[in-house]
């Protein structure tokens, strides 16, 4: 019933619903890219180098004669995949660690919290760059780097929520009934820390997509010729005067995608926690 009410509150926010619609559209375009893309995203063509947008090439062609629209569509795959995989890694490390820290308290909490402090002290992108540098630059390592750098945020959120829930009467009642701590943590506490974790996840998705685009822009993510929005912007920069359209569309795609995840994240936060704001 509580969830139904939260869903209603979410659906009453036009901006959040619009964000959700755009995300669904991006996912559909990414999944259907091989079917709907008008051209092969990596096929070069000497006769179609740097052509402005036209009826044939809606977003123009790039410095190798590749169709920009097809590359933007396939680029959505890299961005969304990077977002989902790195946030899953982050939640997979951060949530159990936060649950453990919040539930166990004492020295376990102290040690985990100091490790999180140390990781949060390193600027997010610089840590991610350093990790990809040492692991070797490719999309998989970029996703691992972003995931590991994001994990401390999930740990903090999960820890705070766990501490709040662990103090509630029903958890104390479960103790009195002789339930084992592990069972309490998994069955009684974990499902109830889901709302703040979900909000964190949608905002982290937005940040992860920007981070993947940033790493690919720097040449540390998706490697050419595979399309990614960030690496497309990197090569677009060299042709700003001759082919400005190359810089417009991939950036617009990142902006729209990230904006939508932020709108959904804000909507979820307001819907799940009506006390906030």
């Amino acid at each position, binding site marked *: 019933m509580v969830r139904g009410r939260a869903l209603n509150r979410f659906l009453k926010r036009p901006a959040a619903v619009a964000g959700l619609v755009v995300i669904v559209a991006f996912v559909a375009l990414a999944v259907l890219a091989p079917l709907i893309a008008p051209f092969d995203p990596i096929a070069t063509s000497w006769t179609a180098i740097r052509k402005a947008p036209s009826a044939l090439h809606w977003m123009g062609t790039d410095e190798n004669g590749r169709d920009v629209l097809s590359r933007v569509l396939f680029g959505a795959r890299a961005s969304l995949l990077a977002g989902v995989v790195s946030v899953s890694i982050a939640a997979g490390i951060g949530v159990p660690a936060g649950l453990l820290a919040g539930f166990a308290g004492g020295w376990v909490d102290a040690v985990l919290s100091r490790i999180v*402090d140390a990781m949060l002290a390193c600027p997010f992108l610089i840590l991610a760059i350093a990790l990809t540098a*040492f692991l070797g630059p490719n999309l998989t390592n970029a996703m691992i780097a972003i995931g590991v750098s994001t994990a401390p945020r999930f740990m903090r959120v999960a820890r705070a929520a766990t501490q709040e829930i662990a103090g509630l009467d029903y958890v104390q009642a479960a103790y009195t009934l002789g339930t084992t701590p592990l069972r309490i943590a998994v069955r009684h506490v974990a499902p109830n820390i889901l709302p703040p974790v979900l909000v964190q996840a949608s905002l982290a998705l937005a940040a992860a997509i920007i981070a993947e685009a940033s790493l690919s822009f720097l040449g540390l993510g998706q490697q050419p010729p595979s399309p990614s929005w960030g690496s497309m912007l990197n090569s677009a920069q060299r042709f700003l005067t001759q082919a400005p359209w190359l810089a417009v569309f991939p*950036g617009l795609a990142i902006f729209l995608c990230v904006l939508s995840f932020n709108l959904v994240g804000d909507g979820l936060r307001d819907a799940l926690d009506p006390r906030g704001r």
Partner: protein
Amino acid sequence: MKLGVRIAQVIPTIILVSVLVFCLQQLMPGDPAIVLAGEERGDPRVLAQIRAELWLDRSLPEQYWHWISNVVHGDLGHSWRTRQPVAELIAQKLPVTAQVGVMAFLIAVLIGVPTGVVAAVKRDGPWDYLANAIGLAGLSMPNFWLGIMLILFVSVDLGWLPASGYVSPWEDWRQSLATTVMPAFVLGNSIAAILMRHTRSAMLSVLDQDYIRTARAKGLAEMTVILRHALRNALIPVVTLGALELGTLLSGAVLTEQVFSIPGFGKMVVDAVFNRDYPVVQGVVLVTALLFILLNLLADILYVLVDPRLRRA
């Protein structure tokens, strides 16, 4: 929180950061000695010499101890590429990033704080929605794309400002301003959005309080109430949150410096990554983390000094 406790908490964090940075090196695939030896990688004597020099033939705890005792003495190792001390390289590049960073922060405050105040005062009105929409757009815009678009319009189309490069203010301050104002705006933009959100919520909680109603009841002009009474108190949490944004600033600097070809800290770390110059990458991570920890400690101390209510705690 007691200041002593807060300062004591910083020490284990700094030690853990150093361990973390040291561990980065262990992720590296392959043998660093072979990378360093270059053409002479077939000569076992050269490899042995490099390993001995860099303590690579010792156990990990010994390697860490060797590395950290050098770091404590200000020696961050040498660049594998140029053989220059890493500390010297960082000291050369940091002022450039600091100049752009300070300008970015000023721009962020000038945009973020007034829009946050207007949004809070005109709560739920059209100005509030507009400010929130612009804030959200600012947060969602990848700053390297904003930089590229600005270069396209301001430099390529209008020809008002140089598209890239950097001139030191000691050489020619006008030219220096011209080369740094666009990067500073790009860098400040996302922080402005964060400051706007914080200022808005801090103002909203202050505007509800009794002393504001008293000030209005006294017949003070609304402008005086907002600026003298409300904003002054709302700004305290905003200032400390500003210190937390140093990380955003440094992360953003990596991208902005790349877009505008500014020879700062961020460009140095990207170049180091491509040259596989690992000591430089390690040094940069360590120095940025230490800066972040110290600035936040300073912000906490200032917070206590500025707000008398926290002093006795």
